[in-house]
């Protein structure tokens, strides 16, 4: 189910402004890849090009190819909505639909689809998604209550359940723990370890210890200079990046020696 992603010669623009230049990287299926780097270096922008979320901003566009198991998601005739279903996303702030129940939040994506799904089938998806998100035991008796009544950590796991309910192949996470306390953060990190057995996961994080804990591969992004585009400095095995990175800029960043 999990798929491999190949990013080749990608340049990302906001209007005329080149935000990130010349990204080349491969993301292996059933693995966790972390993107780290200072604010504004383009790591979230790159993440958003992986499921065509970047182009929802007016004037934003992408050059180069992003291939999912060899198929370019920017190819002619590819429906971006299909891409986003295949490649799910979890955001920085938990964003359950506030007026919807927990149940309806989980199946929101499924109901958008054209296919008619039976109640019993939906019940099954709700339970399996919430179980996969390690939330089932906490909410099974209050599925009809609003999702906004959950704690922050629970809401984020609800959003993960919602993302995996549509059976994606890749899960993109944009700082999924930055609004959470340490216990909820650990719960999400444990969840990531379970999810990677089924999905390809890419996580953007400002927390370098988190990148070191959860990922197999780490990519470091940086700005070439003020007003210059962001770039990927290097990608390597996470233990290599944190013990003996090849590029001095990576070492300076992870050791806290910037500027």
């Amino acid at each position, binding site marked *: 189910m999990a798929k491999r992603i190949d990013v080749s010669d990608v340049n990302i623009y906001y209007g005329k402004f080149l935000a990130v230049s010349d990204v080349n990287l491969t993301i292996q299926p059933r693995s966790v890849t972390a993107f780290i780097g200072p604010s504004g270096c383009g790591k979230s922008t790159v993440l958003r090009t992986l499921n065509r979320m970047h182009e929802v901003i007016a004037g934003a566009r992408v050059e180069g190819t992003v291939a999912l198991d060899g198929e370019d998601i920017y190819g002619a005739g590819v429906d971006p909505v299909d891409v986003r279903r295949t490649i799910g996303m979890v955001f920085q702030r938990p964003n359950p639909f506030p007026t919807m129940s927990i149940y309806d939040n989980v199946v929101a994506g499924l109901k958008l689809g054209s296919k008619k799904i039976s109640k019993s089938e939906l019940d099954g998806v709700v339970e399996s998604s919430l179980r996969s998100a390690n939330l089932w035991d906490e909410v099974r008796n209050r599925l009809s209550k609003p999702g906004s009544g959950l704690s922050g950590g629970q809401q984020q796991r609800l959003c993960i359940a919602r993302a995996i309910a549509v059976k994606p192949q890749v899960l993109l996470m944009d700082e999924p723990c930055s609004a959470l306390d340490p216990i909820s953060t650990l719960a999400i990190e444990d969840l990531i370890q379970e999810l990677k057995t089924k999905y390809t996961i890419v996580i953007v994080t400002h927390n*370098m*210890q988190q990148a070191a804990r959860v990922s197999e591969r780490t990519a470091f992004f940086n700005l070439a200079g003020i007003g210059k585009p962001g770039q990927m400095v290097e990608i390597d095995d996470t233990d290599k990046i944190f*013990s*003996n*990175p090849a590029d001095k800029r*990576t070492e300076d960043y*992870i050791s*806290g*020696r910037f500027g």
Partner: protein
Amino acid sequence: MRDVYHDELDDIGKGVIEMTNLVAIAMDRATSALLDANLAQAEAVMAADKRIDTLRTDLEERTFQVISRQQPVATDLRVLISTIHLTADLERMGDLADHVAKIARLRFPESAVPEEARDVISQMGEVARSLVTKVADVVDGRDIALAQAIEAEDDSMDALRRKLFTLVLSPNWSRGTEAAIDMTLLGRYYERYADHAVAVARHTIFIVTGRRPEH
């Protein structure tokens, strides 16, 4: 906050250099105490060893604190982990100099070294000094080429030790068992001192390259 961290890393580095200099002085003095039957010199070595032990404890504690509070990575992490190892080696080198000084004191007012062994012991002292001087340069400048040269010099220490054995085991040895034991122990002390010096150089190679040198 990061400045405090980097200052502390620098200070720990300076502490390691100080330890290296102290163990160099210690063995040098111990050798002359031994060859000249100089009691004051021998006792100075023993007194100075306490400073080396204190430095080691202090550096270990501070390294532990930095690791627990700053989550160091990459070179910083290699420096700190290696500091724990190499301060143990340096402390042991200080102890070995202390042992040499104790033999000098034990035999005072005689010299512990009989005439026919003087040359070998004196050479061992020379090699020890040359080795540890290089080690100090390696630690201070993290000079990898020099670190590799140290291994070759250690081989000459091993050769001297064999020479000392040959002397003691020879049918011509006329100094009795006590002196034979002294020579055997001294040979062992100098040889171990050199081995720990090599270990310090190896830890420094790891700090710089991120790879452990092969044995």
